[in-house]
């Protein structure tokens, strides 16, 4: 341990220990459940992680005075012993408090390393998948810089005609991201693969200090007022990136964490850029707590630009080989439905009542408008959709007028009330689908943005369509 602190531009090392009594540590650890705490502790004690998460062990030389120091959590003599201990705790009953105390005042009394904190934080994400609010950004290539007549460099523009797909190399990215971080804050990076989803998660832990020594961390002021965590997820095989809203421990929260996010949104594209190949981040107006839903709309699947009813084109289960000579049955037709339902109930077909027919019609319309998306149990829901209506208020106008509003009619001022719509719920579009299915919403007259096929959660509606997204947002 160095005696003097010298300001540096290096990142915080993973092995750096934090005082276990600081609020950051207790905050991160205490929100985990008992089972998760034990599994995290076992994770720390894993062979591969042990070098970065060394527990406090009994020193070899003073074997004789082990009994008399009245230690509530006597230190173990080897990591294996400790592992056994935690495994046995797993089967025993007890309170979360015990485990927490054991970790902070017993086995890791000399400090919890930043790496350990990162693992614990990720465990919280696995336990509570909706704990973070993610925004999706698209990585877009930039044009080569040009100079105008005075020799000044023009602001860079997105290169729409570029055919290169930005590439992501984790270690190179971290290296150049570190160069982008200002020298008066220090960050710790931890890259991890998501356990179940095809994602690479980067956790950035930032403190307000120019030093990267234990001293800077041990002073509670730095640790507790200025530490922030931000998560960045890189989906496999897709030029998109998801950035979480930073969480900070300090009292001065909102504005600072916003500026940190802005800083990162500025720094990430620079770190992703390669020589002669610059990129930028573009917001895709999609913000949700559901990572799985994000992956469905911005991941490496076919359904990215084919949401709602268009998903029938993206469904890979449908076999549509050109070598099959059998006449295909169109979707939603009787034959297709029979196939789906099995052929058992053919004989008891009687004339359906009017109500049954209306219900069936509503169900079919919902199926046509939503396809196989927006099911209640599919786990791909968004929890909030904000829309601004920019359509003029129609007074007895028929449909023929609507098409002409586009450009010319702007001369005479139409009445445009300021209407904002917010849909809120556990799975917004599944809710709308259910309303269509039970006939509350007329599925045939329902505008397309209510099906979620645009794949955005923030938008402005003009002429009945989400503006700027006449299509897939290309």
């Amino acid at each position: 341990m160095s005696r003097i602190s010298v300001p540096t531009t290096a990142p915080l090392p993973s092995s750096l220990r934090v005082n276990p009594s600081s609020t950051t540590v207790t905050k991160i650890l205490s929100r985990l459940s008992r089972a998760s705490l034990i599994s995290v502790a076992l994770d720390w004690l894993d062979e591969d992680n042990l070098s970065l998460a060394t527990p406090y062990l009994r020193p070899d030389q003073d074997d004789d005075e082990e009994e008399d120091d009245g230690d509530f959590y006597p230190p173990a003599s080897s990591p294996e012993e400790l592992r056994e201990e935690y495994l046995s705790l797993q089967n025993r009953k007890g309170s979360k408090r015990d485990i927490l105390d054991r970790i902070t005042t017993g086995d890791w009394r000399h400090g919890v390393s930043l790496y350990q904190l990162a693992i614990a934080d990720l465990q919280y994400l696995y336990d509570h998948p909706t704990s973070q609010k993610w925004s999706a950004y698209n990585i877009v290539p930039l044009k080569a810089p040009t100079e105008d007549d005075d020799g000044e460099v023009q602001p860079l523009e997105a290169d729409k005609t570029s055919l290169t797909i930005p590439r992501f190399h984790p270690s190179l990215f971290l290296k150049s991201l570190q160069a982008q971080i200002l020298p008066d804050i220090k960050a710790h990076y931890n890259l991890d693969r998501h356990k179940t989803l095809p994602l690479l998660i980067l956790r950035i832990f930032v403190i307000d200090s120019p030093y990267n020594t234990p001293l800077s961390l041990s002073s509670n002021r730095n640790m507790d007022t200025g530490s922030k965590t931000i998560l960045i997820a890189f989906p496999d095989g897709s030029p998109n990136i998801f950035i979480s809203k930073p969480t900070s421990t300090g009292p001065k929260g909102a504005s600072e964490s916003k500026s940190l996010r802005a800083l990162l949104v500025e720094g990430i594209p620079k770190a992703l850029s390669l020589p002669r190949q610059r990129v930028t981040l573009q917001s895709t107006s999609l913000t949700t707590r559901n990572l799985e839903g994000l992956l469905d709309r911005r991941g490496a699947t076919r359904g990215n630009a084919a949401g709602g009813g268009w998903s029938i084109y993206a469904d890979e289960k449908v076999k549509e080989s050109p070598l099959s000579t059998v006449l295909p049955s169109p979707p939603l037709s009787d034959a297709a439905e029979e196939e789906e339902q099995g052929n058992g109930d053919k004989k008891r077909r009687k004339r359906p009542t009017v109500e049954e027919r209306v219900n069936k019609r509503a169900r079919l319309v919902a199926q046509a408008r939503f396809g196989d998306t927006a099911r209640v149990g599919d786990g791909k829901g968004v929890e909030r959709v904000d829309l601004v209506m920019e359509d003029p208020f129609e007074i007895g106008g028929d449909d023929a007028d609507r098409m002409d509003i586009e450009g010319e009619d702007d001369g005479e001022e139409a009445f445009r009330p300021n209407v904002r719509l917010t849909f809120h719920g556990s799975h917004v579009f599944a809710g709308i689908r259910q309303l269509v299915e039970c006939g509350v919403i007329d599925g045939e007259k329902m505008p397309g943005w209510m099906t979620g096929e645009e794949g955005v959660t923030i938008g402005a509606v003009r002429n009945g369509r989400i503006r700027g997204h006449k299509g897939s947002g290309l």
Partner: protein
Amino acid sequence: MSSPLRTSPQPPTLDHEISALQSKIKTLKSALALQASTLLTSPSTLALLSSDPKLTSQSSLHQSHHLQTLYRTCATLTLFRAQDPDPNAVDAGSILGLRIEVVSRAKFLRPYYVLFNRPWASSSSFPGPQRKWLRVHRHTVPSCIPLSGLAARYLPSPDKDDTRRKQDLGKFARGVRREVVRYHARLGTVADLRKAAGLGRGGDGGDKSGLVDISPADAEVRHVSVEWGDGRTGRLVIGDDGEVEKLVVVGENGRDREAGRELLGGLGLAGTVKAEEVVRRLAGTGGA
């Protein structure tokens, strides 16, 4: 635990019988559909059918479907019409669909679709022909294909002042197909490389070649990372035409040119070797 052990030696129950019969019904039905389609389109039956209007209409349906599948198989780029269900859709919801067939591992995959609309159809601010210009509305092309770049190149939006602007659907379609086919060829090559190096799906090491992992390293599968059991790692860049564009192998003591030459074979010069040849070489050494 004990109940399945007890029931297994017993003869199949009624449920099994029912499910077996149901699967039989399914196969028979599909066989029937196939036979019917074959009969309805064969030239010898066509002559007999001419009297029955119902049968002739069925037959013409089947024939047009046959023609469609023929085009889909041979031309691999086909167009179709569709209807946008959105009541506010532009151009009354007319949609032009482009279907792109891809063959991978001797099988037709689910085709990729690009759906176009004509958002400028009803606006009077553009000259006549430009109002019919297309715009990509929806598509199912994976995000690692530069579809937006191709669309910006070949399907620009209309501009009153720029009369030289042109849309070229043919070039766009061919461009997308080229990228999609290349992508699947690269995916196939990586799978072949893995197979040739004796790497199973479970990722158990193939000790014959000393390689422990071959996996795509970027979204487009242009970069392939190669790992050896002794800690050497390599990066292979596959070019547009399936050639190995670059290869770098880094061992403990910096760059390991010998290993690179060994992997590529021949002169060991990147850019002259096709990825398939590497596959063949790996398979050869694996077998020996």
